[in-house]
Protein backbone atom coordinates (compact mmCIF):
# COMPACT_ATOMS: atom_id res chain seq x y z
CA UNK A 1 0.00 0.00 0.00
CA UNK A 2 1.22 3.45 -0.90
CA UNK A 3 1.35 5.84 2.06
CA UNK A 4 -0.60 9.09 1.80
CA UNK A 5 1.30 12.36 1.81
CA UNK A 6 0.30 15.25 4.09
CA UNK A 7 -1.16 17.12 1.13
CA UNK A 8 -3.23 14.08 0.09
CA UNK A 9 -4.56 13.71 3.64
CA UNK A 10 -5.69 17.33 3.43
CA UNK A 11 -7.14 17.07 -0.09
CA UNK A 12 -9.19 13.95 0.68
CA UNK A 13 -10.01 14.83 4.29
CA UNK A 14 -13.74 15.34 3.77
CA UNK A 15 -14.25 11.89 2.24
CA UNK A 16 -11.85 10.16 4.65
CA UNK A 17 -14.11 11.19 7.56
CA UNK A 18 -16.97 9.26 5.92
CA UNK A 19 -17.92 6.23 8.02
CA UNK A 20 -15.74 3.26 7.01
CA UNK A 21 -13.58 5.22 4.54
CA UNK A 22 -10.51 6.45 6.46
CA UNK A 23 -6.89 6.25 5.35
CA UNK A 24 -7.17 2.64 4.30
CA UNK A 25 -9.86 3.18 1.67
CA UNK A 26 -7.99 6.23 0.41
CA UNK A 27 -4.82 4.16 0.00
CA UNK A 28 -6.79 1.58 -1.97
CA UNK A 29 -7.87 4.33 -4.39
CA UNK A 30 -4.24 5.39 -4.69
CA UNK A 31 -3.29 1.83 -5.68
CA UNK A 32 -6.20 1.35 -8.07
CA UNK A 33 -6.07 1.14 -11.85
CA UNK A 34 -9.21 1.91 -13.83
CA UNK A 35 -10.06 1.74 -17.53
CA UNK A 36 -12.61 4.23 -18.87
CA UNK A 37 -14.00 3.42 -22.33
CA UNK A 38 -15.04 6.73 -23.88
CA UNK A 39 -14.22 10.37 -23.06
CA UNK A 40 -17.58 11.83 -24.08
CA UNK A 41 -20.79 12.66 -22.21
CA UNK A 42 -20.56 9.86 -19.64
CA UNK A 43 -16.76 9.66 -19.63
CA UNK A 44 -16.60 13.32 -18.56
CA UNK A 45 -18.26 13.14 -15.10
CA UNK A 46 -16.97 9.59 -14.54
CA UNK A 47 -13.32 10.50 -15.10
CA UNK A 48 -13.60 13.88 -13.36
CA UNK A 49 -15.16 12.51 -10.17
CA UNK A 50 -12.89 9.49 -9.84
CA UNK A 51 -9.88 11.75 -10.53
CA UNK A 52 -10.77 14.26 -7.80
CA UNK A 53 -11.46 11.35 -5.40
CA UNK A 54 -7.84 10.24 -5.78
CA UNK A 55 -7.95 7.18 -8.07
CA UNK A 56 -4.34 7.31 -9.17
CA UNK A 57 -4.10 5.33 -12.40
CA UNK A 58 -6.68 6.16 -15.03
CA UNK A 59 -6.52 4.69 -18.53
CA UNK A 60 -8.96 6.58 -20.74
CA UNK A 61 -9.67 5.63 -24.34
CA UNK A 62 -11.38 7.51 -27.18
CA UNK A 63 -10.59 7.61 -30.89
CA UNK A 64 -12.68 10.73 -31.64
CA UNK A 65 -12.14 14.46 -31.53
CA UNK A 66 -14.43 16.94 -29.72
CA UNK A 67 -16.91 18.69 -32.01
CA UNK A 68 -18.96 21.81 -31.30
CA UNK A 69 -22.13 19.69 -30.96
CA UNK A 70 -20.45 17.65 -28.16
CA UNK A 71 -19.93 20.64 -25.89
CA UNK A 72 -23.49 20.74 -24.49
CA UNK A 73 -22.48 17.72 -22.38
CA UNK A 74 -18.81 16.68 -22.72
CA UNK A 75 -17.44 18.85 -19.92
CA UNK A 76 -13.90 17.45 -20.23
CA UNK A 77 -13.57 19.48 -23.43
CA UNK A 78 -14.10 23.10 -24.50
CA UNK A 79 -13.87 25.15 -27.69
CA UNK A 80 -10.06 25.14 -27.50
CA UNK A 81 -10.00 21.30 -27.50
CA UNK A 82 -11.62 21.04 -30.95
CA UNK A 83 -9.12 19.27 -33.21
CA UNK A 84 -7.36 17.41 -30.37
CA UNK A 85 -8.04 13.74 -29.64
CA UNK A 86 -10.63 13.35 -26.84
CA UNK A 87 -8.46 11.06 -24.68
CA UNK A 88 -5.57 13.55 -24.86
CA UNK A 89 -7.90 16.48 -24.11
CA UNK A 90 -9.25 14.46 -21.15
CA UNK A 91 -5.72 13.87 -19.83
CA UNK A 92 -5.05 17.64 -19.83
CA UNK A 93 -8.27 18.42 -17.95
CA UNK A 94 -7.91 15.59 -15.40
CA UNK A 95 -4.28 16.28 -14.54
CA UNK A 96 -5.14 19.96 -14.05
CA UNK A 97 -7.98 19.00 -11.68
CA UNK A 98 -5.71 16.65 -9.73
CA UNK A 99 -1.94 16.78 -10.35
CA UNK A 100 -1.40 13.74 -8.07
CA UNK A 101 -2.88 11.26 -10.55
CA UNK A 102 -1.52 9.60 -13.68
CA UNK A 103 -3.67 9.51 -16.79
CA UNK A 104 -2.85 7.32 -19.78
CA UNK A 105 -4.56 8.55 -22.96
CA UNK A 106 -5.33 5.85 -25.55
CA UNK A 107 -6.38 7.16 -28.96
CA UNK A 108 -7.12 3.85 -30.72
CA UNK A 109 -10.52 2.58 -31.80
CA UNK A 110 -11.46 -0.47 -29.69
CA UNK A 111 -11.80 -3.60 -31.85
CA UNK A 112 -12.22 -7.30 -31.12
CA UNK A 113 -8.50 -7.75 -31.83
CA UNK A 114 -6.93 -4.93 -29.81
CA UNK A 115 -9.33 -4.87 -26.83
CA UNK A 116 -6.94 -6.83 -24.56
CA UNK A 117 -3.97 -4.60 -25.31
CA UNK A 118 -6.02 -1.42 -24.89
CA UNK A 119 -7.63 -2.32 -21.57
CA UNK A 120 -4.63 -4.17 -20.15
CA UNK A 121 -4.39 -5.21 -16.54
CA UNK A 122 -6.89 -3.08 -14.61
CA UNK A 123 -9.03 -3.47 -11.48
CA UNK A 124 -12.20 -2.11 -13.06
CA UNK A 125 -13.69 -1.24 -16.46
CA UNK A 126 -16.18 1.62 -16.84
CA UNK A 127 -18.38 1.61 -19.94
CA UNK A 128 -18.94 5.20 -21.12
CA UNK A 129 -19.54 4.20 -24.73
CA UNK A 130 -22.32 5.19 -27.10
CA UNK A 131 -22.63 1.95 -29.12
CA UNK A 132 -23.27 -1.69 -28.32
CA UNK A 133 -20.81 -3.17 -30.83
CA UNK A 134 -17.85 -1.84 -28.84
CA UNK A 135 -19.60 -2.49 -25.51
CA UNK A 136 -19.80 -6.19 -26.41
CA UNK A 137 -16.03 -6.31 -27.15
CA UNK A 138 -15.20 -4.94 -23.71
CA UNK A 139 -17.88 -7.15 -22.10
CA UNK A 140 -16.26 -10.25 -23.60
CA UNK A 141 -12.84 -9.20 -22.28
CA UNK A 142 -14.29 -8.37 -18.84
CA UNK A 143 -15.96 -11.81 -18.61
CA UNK A 144 -12.86 -13.64 -19.84
CA UNK A 145 -10.55 -11.89 -17.37
CA UNK A 146 -13.12 -11.67 -14.51
CA UNK A 147 -12.78 -7.89 -14.34
CA UNK A 148 -15.87 -6.10 -13.01
CA UNK A 149 -17.49 -3.63 -15.42
CA UNK A 150 -19.86 -0.74 -14.74
CA UNK A 151 -22.26 -0.34 -17.65
CA UNK A 152 -24.32 2.74 -18.42
CA UNK A 153 -26.31 4.15 -21.30
CA UNK A 154 -28.13 7.47 -21.82
CA UNK A 155 -30.84 8.79 -24.16
CA UNK A 156 -32.53 12.19 -23.93
CA UNK A 157 -33.38 12.67 -20.27
CA UNK A 158 -33.22 8.96 -19.46
CA UNK A 159 -30.49 6.55 -18.52
CA UNK A 160 -29.57 3.17 -17.09
CA UNK A 161 -26.71 1.77 -15.06
CA UNK A 162 -25.60 -1.54 -13.55
CA UNK A 163 -22.47 -3.24 -12.27
CA UNK A 164 -21.47 -6.48 -13.96
CA UNK A 165 -19.27 -8.97 -12.15
CA UNK A 166 -19.41 -12.45 -13.65
CA UNK A 167 -19.96 -15.21 -12.69
CA UNK A 168 -21.86 -13.56 -9.81
CA UNK A 169 -24.06 -11.41 -12.09
CA UNK A 170 -25.39 -11.59 -15.64
CA UNK A 171 -23.04 -10.15 -18.27
CA UNK A 172 -23.95 -7.32 -20.65
CA UNK A 173 -24.95 -9.79 -23.37
CA UNK A 174 -27.46 -11.47 -20.99
CA UNK A 175 -28.99 -8.03 -20.24
CA UNK A 176 -28.81 -6.62 -23.75
CA UNK A 177 -28.04 -9.20 -26.45
CA UNK A 178 -27.02 -7.84 -29.84
CA UNK A 179 -26.60 -4.25 -30.98
CA UNK A 180 -29.41 -1.85 -31.75
CA UNK A 181 -28.45 0.45 -34.66
CA UNK A 182 -26.48 3.44 -33.36
CA UNK A 183 -28.03 6.70 -34.56
CA UNK A 184 -27.68 10.34 -33.58
CA UNK A 185 -29.82 10.45 -30.42
CA UNK A 186 -31.05 13.31 -28.20
CA UNK A 187 -28.94 14.05 -25.11
CA UNK A 188 -28.45 16.85 -22.60
CA UNK A 189 -25.48 17.30 -20.25
CA UNK A 190 -27.43 16.94 -17.01
CA UNK A 191 -28.45 13.39 -18.02
CA UNK A 192 -24.83 12.35 -18.49
CA UNK A 193 -24.07 14.17 -15.22
CA UNK A 194 -26.61 12.13 -13.24
CA UNK A 195 -25.80 8.74 -14.77
CA UNK A 196 -22.03 9.30 -15.00
CA UNK A 197 -21.83 10.45 -11.37
CA UNK A 198 -23.75 7.31 -10.36
CA UNK A 199 -21.21 5.22 -12.29
CA UNK A 200 -18.34 7.02 -10.58
CA UNK A 201 -19.95 6.29 -7.22
CA UNK A 202 -20.24 2.57 -8.01
CA UNK A 203 -16.56 2.63 -9.02
CA UNK A 204 -15.45 4.35 -5.81
CA UNK A 205 -17.51 1.99 -3.64
CA UNK A 206 -16.00 -1.02 -5.37
CA UNK A 207 -12.41 0.24 -5.26
CA UNK A 208 -12.57 1.52 -1.67
CA UNK A 209 -14.61 -1.39 -0.30
CA UNK A 210 -17.15 1.01 1.25
CA UNK A 211 -20.89 0.46 0.69
CA UNK A 212 -22.79 -2.01 -1.50
CA UNK A 213 -22.66 -2.27 -5.28
CA UNK A 214 -25.57 -2.46 -7.70
CA UNK A 215 -24.96 -6.11 -8.67
CA UNK A 216 -27.50 -7.98 -10.78
CA UNK A 217 -29.84 -4.98 -10.74
CA UNK A 218 -30.39 -2.42 -13.47
CA UNK A 219 -31.06 1.14 -12.27
CA UNK A 220 -33.34 2.94 -14.73
CA UNK A 221 -33.81 6.71 -14.52
CA UNK A 222 -36.52 8.83 -16.12
CA UNK A 223 -35.41 12.43 -15.69
CA UNK A 224 -38.60 13.88 -17.22
CA UNK A 225 -40.59 12.52 -14.28
CA UNK A 226 -37.53 12.29 -12.00
CA UNK A 227 -38.24 8.64 -11.29
CA UNK A 228 -35.73 5.95 -10.39
CA UNK A 229 -36.52 2.23 -10.72
CA UNK A 230 -34.46 -0.88 -10.07
CA UNK A 231 -35.05 -3.97 -12.18
CA UNK A 232 -33.55 -7.34 -11.21
CA UNK A 233 -31.51 -8.93 -14.04
CA UNK A 234 -31.07 -12.63 -14.71
CA UNK A 235 -28.27 -14.67 -16.22
CA UNK A 236 -29.03 -16.28 -19.54
CA UNK A 237 -27.87 -19.88 -19.06
CA UNK A 238 -27.33 -20.19 -22.80
CA UNK A 239 -25.43 -16.87 -23.07
CA UNK A 240 -22.71 -17.18 -25.71
CA UNK A 241 -20.45 -14.90 -23.64
CA UNK A 242 -20.83 -15.96 -20.00
CA UNK A 243 -22.91 -19.18 -20.27
CA UNK A 244 -21.44 -22.62 -19.57
CA UNK A 245 -20.82 -23.50 -23.20
CA UNK A 246 -19.12 -20.28 -24.17
CA UNK A 247 -15.84 -22.00 -25.10
CA UNK A 248 -13.82 -19.78 -22.72
CA UNK A 249 -11.24 -21.72 -20.74
Amino acid at each position, binding site marked *: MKELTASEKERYHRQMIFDGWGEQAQQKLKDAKVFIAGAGGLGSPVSIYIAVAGVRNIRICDCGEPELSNLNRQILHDDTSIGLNKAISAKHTLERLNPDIQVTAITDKITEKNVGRIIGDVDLIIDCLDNFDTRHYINLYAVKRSIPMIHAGVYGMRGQMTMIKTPETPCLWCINPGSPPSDVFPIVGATA*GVIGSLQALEALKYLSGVGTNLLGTLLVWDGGKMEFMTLPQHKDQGCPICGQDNGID
Partner: protein
Amino acid sequence: MDLNSSEKERYSRQMIITDWGEAGQQRLKKSTVFIAGAGGLGSPVAVYLAAAGVGTLRICDFGEPELSNLNRQILHTESDIGINKAISAEASIKLLNPNVRVVPITDMITQDTVEGIVGNADIIVDCLDNFEARHILNEFAVKKLLPFIHAGIHGLSGQVTFIHSPETPCLRCVFPAVVPKKVFPVVGVTPGIIGSIESAEALKWIVGIGENLKNQLLIWDGDTMDFQKVLIKKDPDCPVCGNL
Protein backbone atom coordinates in the same frame (compact mmCIF):
# COMPACT_ATOMS: atom_id res chain seq x y z
CA MET B 1 -34.01 35.89 -28.84
CA ASP B 2 -32.68 34.26 -32.00
CA LEU B 3 -30.01 31.57 -32.01
CA ASN B 4 -26.99 32.01 -34.27
CA SER B 5 -25.72 29.11 -36.40
CA SER B 6 -22.94 28.23 -33.96
CA GLU B 7 -25.46 28.00 -31.09
CA LYS B 8 -27.77 25.83 -33.19
CA GLU B 9 -24.84 23.47 -33.78
CA ARG B 10 -23.64 23.52 -30.17
CA TYR B 11 -27.07 22.69 -28.71
CA SER B 12 -28.29 20.48 -31.57
CA ARG B 13 -28.30 17.26 -29.55
CA GLN B 14 -30.55 18.62 -26.79
CA MET B 15 -32.80 20.55 -29.19
CA ILE B 16 -33.92 17.17 -30.61
CA ILE B 17 -35.28 16.15 -27.18
CA THR B 18 -39.09 15.94 -27.50
CA ASP B 19 -40.68 19.41 -27.07
CA TRP B 20 -37.31 21.15 -26.51
CA GLY B 21 -36.63 22.52 -30.01
CA GLU B 22 -35.45 25.98 -30.95
CA ALA B 23 -38.13 27.63 -28.78
CA GLY B 24 -36.89 25.82 -25.65
CA GLN B 25 -33.30 26.75 -26.44
CA GLN B 26 -34.31 30.40 -26.89
CA ARG B 27 -36.02 30.34 -23.48
CA LEU B 28 -32.72 29.10 -21.97
CA LYS B 29 -30.79 31.86 -23.73
CA LYS B 30 -33.18 34.49 -22.34
CA SER B 31 -33.12 33.15 -18.80
CA THR B 32 -31.15 34.20 -15.73
CA VAL B 33 -30.40 31.62 -13.03
CA PHE B 34 -29.19 32.48 -9.55
CA ILE B 35 -26.82 29.85 -8.13
CA ALA B 36 -26.31 30.22 -4.38
CA GLY B 37 -22.90 28.71 -3.62
CA ALA B 38 -19.98 27.75 -5.89
CA GLY B 39 -18.87 24.68 -3.94
CA GLY B 40 -19.66 20.96 -4.22
CA LEU B 41 -23.25 21.38 -5.48
CA GLY B 42 -22.67 24.68 -7.25
CA SER B 43 -19.95 23.11 -9.41
CA PRO B 44 -22.04 20.57 -11.39
CA VAL B 45 -25.05 22.94 -11.37
CA ALA B 46 -23.08 25.82 -12.91
CA VAL B 47 -21.20 23.51 -15.29
CA TYR B 48 -24.29 21.76 -16.68
CA LEU B 49 -26.46 24.89 -16.86
CA ALA B 50 -23.67 26.71 -18.69
CA ALA B 51 -23.05 23.80 -21.08
CA ALA B 52 -26.81 23.73 -21.83
CA GLY B 53 -26.78 27.41 -22.84
CA VAL B 54 -28.48 29.33 -20.01
CA GLY B 55 -28.05 33.02 -20.94
CA THR B 56 -26.95 34.46 -17.61
CA LEU B 57 -25.65 32.77 -14.46
CA ARG B 58 -25.49 34.84 -11.29
CA ILE B 59 -23.09 32.86 -9.07
CA CYS B 60 -22.66 33.85 -5.43
CA ASP B 61 -20.02 32.71 -2.95
CA PHE B 62 -17.98 34.71 -0.46
CA GLY B 63 -15.46 31.92 0.29
CA GLU B 64 -12.15 30.90 -1.25
CA PRO B 65 -11.26 27.38 -2.47
CA GLU B 66 -9.14 25.34 -0.04
CA LEU B 67 -7.19 22.16 -0.75
CA SER B 68 -9.78 20.11 1.20
CA ASN B 69 -12.52 21.36 -1.20
CA LEU B 70 -10.87 19.93 -4.29
CA ASN B 71 -12.15 16.35 -3.82
CA ARG B 72 -15.53 17.63 -5.03
CA GLN B 73 -15.56 21.29 -6.13
CA ILE B 74 -14.72 20.73 -9.78
CA LEU B 75 -15.06 24.42 -10.69
CA HIS B 76 -11.78 25.04 -8.88
CA THR B 77 -8.19 23.74 -9.03
CA GLU B 78 -5.05 24.27 -6.94
CA SER B 79 -4.19 27.44 -8.86
CA ASP B 80 -7.49 29.00 -7.66
CA ILE B 81 -6.60 28.74 -3.97
CA GLY B 82 -6.67 32.32 -2.66
CA ILE B 83 -9.16 33.56 -5.31
CA ASN B 84 -12.83 34.10 -4.44
CA LYS B 85 -14.96 31.07 -5.46
CA ALA B 86 -17.47 33.07 -7.52
CA ILE B 87 -14.61 34.70 -9.46
CA SER B 88 -12.90 31.34 -9.95
CA ALA B 89 -16.25 29.90 -11.13
CA GLU B 90 -16.61 32.70 -13.67
CA ALA B 91 -13.24 31.84 -15.21
CA SER B 92 -14.07 28.10 -15.44
CA ILE B 93 -17.52 28.73 -16.92
CA LYS B 94 -16.29 31.25 -19.51
CA LEU B 95 -13.81 28.62 -20.72
CA LEU B 96 -16.50 25.93 -20.89
CA ASN B 97 -19.03 28.06 -22.76
CA PRO B 98 -18.04 31.56 -23.88
CA ASN B 99 -21.68 32.32 -24.85
CA VAL B 100 -22.79 32.40 -21.22
CA ARG B 101 -22.76 35.65 -19.27
CA VAL B 102 -21.53 35.11 -15.71
CA VAL B 103 -22.16 37.63 -12.93
CA PRO B 104 -19.91 36.69 -9.99
CA ILE B 105 -21.12 37.93 -6.59
CA THR B 106 -18.68 37.79 -3.69
CA ASP B 107 -21.01 38.98 -0.90
CA MET B 108 -22.57 37.00 1.90
CA ILE B 109 -26.34 36.40 1.65
CA THR B 110 -28.11 38.28 4.47
CA GLN B 111 -31.60 39.78 4.98
CA ASP B 112 -30.20 43.10 3.78
CA THR B 113 -28.24 41.88 0.74
CA VAL B 114 -30.52 39.13 -0.62
CA GLU B 115 -32.56 41.32 -2.96
CA GLY B 116 -29.57 42.90 -4.68
CA ILE B 117 -27.74 39.57 -4.88
CA VAL B 118 -30.57 37.57 -6.49
CA GLY B 119 -31.36 40.51 -8.77
CA ASN B 120 -33.49 39.77 -11.81
CA ALA B 121 -33.07 35.95 -11.69
CA ASP B 122 -35.96 33.80 -12.99
CA ILE B 123 -35.13 30.86 -10.72
CA ILE B 124 -32.99 30.18 -7.65
CA VAL B 125 -30.85 27.06 -7.23
CA ASP B 126 -29.80 26.30 -3.65
CA CYS B 127 -26.24 24.94 -3.58
CA LEU B 128 -25.58 26.08 -0.02
CA ASP B 129 -24.16 24.22 2.95
CA ASN B 130 -26.12 25.95 5.73
CA PHE B 131 -29.77 26.49 6.64
CA GLU B 132 -29.39 30.06 7.82
CA ALA B 133 -28.71 31.42 4.33
CA ARG B 134 -31.19 28.91 2.83
CA HIS B 135 -34.02 30.32 4.95
CA ILE B 136 -33.18 33.88 3.89
CA LEU B 137 -33.32 32.83 0.22
CA ASN B 138 -36.51 30.83 0.81
CA GLU B 139 -38.24 33.83 2.30
CA PHE B 140 -37.19 35.98 -0.65
CA ALA B 141 -38.31 33.31 -3.15
CA VAL B 142 -41.73 33.06 -1.46
CA LYS B 143 -42.14 36.85 -1.44
CA LYS B 144 -41.24 37.18 -5.14
CA LEU B 145 -43.03 33.92 -6.16
CA LEU B 146 -39.76 32.64 -7.65
CA PRO B 147 -39.12 28.90 -8.04
CA PHE B 148 -36.46 27.65 -5.63
CA ILE B 149 -34.69 24.30 -6.11
CA HIS B 150 -33.49 23.06 -2.74
CA ALA B 151 -30.81 20.41 -2.27
CA GLY B 152 -28.67 19.18 0.58
CA ILE B 153 -25.99 16.49 0.89
CA HIS B 154 -24.20 14.51 3.60
CA GLY B 155 -21.65 11.74 3.03
CA LEU B 156 -23.15 9.49 0.37
CA SER B 157 -26.72 10.76 0.69
CA GLY B 158 -28.71 13.74 -0.49
CA GLN B 159 -32.13 15.32 -1.06
CA VAL B 160 -33.81 17.55 -3.66
CA THR B 161 -37.17 19.30 -3.95
CA PHE B 162 -38.70 21.91 -6.26
CA ILE B 163 -40.31 24.70 -4.25
CA HIS B 164 -42.67 27.16 -5.93
CA SER B 165 -44.94 28.96 -3.53
CA PRO B 166 -47.95 29.06 -3.26
CA GLU B 167 -48.27 25.82 -5.29
CA THR B 168 -45.90 23.88 -2.99
CA PRO B 169 -44.78 24.02 0.61
CA CYS B 170 -41.84 26.34 1.22
CA LEU B 171 -38.53 25.32 2.76
CA ARG B 172 -39.67 26.52 6.21
CA CYS B 173 -42.75 24.21 6.10
CA VAL B 174 -40.50 21.19 5.55
CA PHE B 175 -37.41 22.18 7.57
CA PRO B 176 -38.54 24.61 10.28
CA ALA B 177 -35.29 24.48 12.25
CA VAL B 178 -31.92 26.02 11.51
CA VAL B 179 -29.55 23.07 11.79
CA PRO B 180 -26.16 24.27 13.05
CA LYS B 181 -23.43 24.13 10.40
CA LYS B 182 -20.45 21.85 10.99
CA VAL B 183 -17.81 19.95 9.02
CA PHE B 184 -19.54 16.91 7.52
CA PRO B 185 -18.26 14.04 5.38
CA VAL B 186 -18.75 14.31 1.62
CA VAL B 187 -17.44 12.51 -1.46
CA GLY B 188 -17.40 14.38 -4.79
CA VAL B 189 -19.84 12.05 -6.53
CA THR B 190 -22.59 12.94 -4.03
CA PRO B 191 -22.84 16.59 -5.13
CA GLY B 192 -22.21 15.31 -8.67
CA ILE B 193 -25.42 13.29 -8.59
CA ILE B 194 -27.55 15.70 -6.56
CA GLY B 195 -26.26 18.79 -8.41
CA SER B 196 -26.91 17.17 -11.80
CA ILE B 197 -30.47 16.40 -10.64
CA GLU B 198 -30.88 20.06 -9.60
CA SER B 199 -29.68 21.21 -13.01
CA ALA B 200 -32.10 18.82 -14.75
CA GLU B 201 -34.93 20.28 -12.64
CA ALA B 202 -33.90 23.84 -13.59
CA LEU B 203 -33.61 23.00 -17.31
CA LYS B 204 -37.03 21.30 -17.37
CA TRP B 205 -38.68 24.30 -15.74
CA ILE B 206 -37.04 26.88 -18.03
CA VAL B 207 -37.52 24.88 -21.24
CA GLY B 208 -41.04 23.87 -20.21
CA ILE B 209 -40.78 20.08 -20.47
CA GLY B 210 -41.32 17.16 -18.08
CA GLU B 211 -42.58 17.34 -14.50
CA ASN B 212 -40.79 19.00 -11.61
CA LEU B 213 -40.29 17.56 -8.13
CA LYS B 214 -43.13 19.61 -6.61
CA ASN B 215 -44.69 18.67 -3.27
CA GLN B 216 -42.24 15.81 -2.92
CA LEU B 217 -38.77 15.42 -1.46
CA LEU B 218 -36.43 13.08 -3.32
CA ILE B 219 -34.20 11.32 -0.81
CA TRP B 220 -31.19 9.40 -2.09
CA ASP B 221 -29.02 6.92 -0.21
CA GLY B 222 -25.90 6.28 -2.25
CA ASP B 223 -24.69 3.49 0.00
CA THR B 224 -27.61 1.23 -0.94
CA MET B 225 -28.46 3.20 -4.13
CA ASP B 226 -31.99 3.71 -2.85
CA PHE B 227 -34.15 6.58 -4.18
CA GLN B 228 -37.35 7.51 -2.33
CA LYS B 229 -39.93 10.21 -2.89
CA VAL B 230 -41.63 11.51 0.24
CA LEU B 231 -44.78 13.64 -0.03
CA ILE B 232 -44.37 17.02 1.67
CA LYS B 233 -47.20 19.31 2.78
CA LYS B 234 -47.71 23.00 3.39
CA ASP B 235 -47.81 24.09 7.01
CA PRO B 236 -50.92 26.31 7.22
CA ASP B 237 -49.30 28.18 10.13
CA CYS B 238 -45.94 28.59 8.38
CA PRO B 239 -44.51 32.00 9.34
CA VAL B 240 -43.08 32.38 5.80
CA CYS B 241 -45.76 31.12 3.37
CA GLY B 242 -48.74 30.59 5.74
CA ASN B 243 -50.70 33.64 4.56
CA LEU B 244 -50.43 32.87 0.83
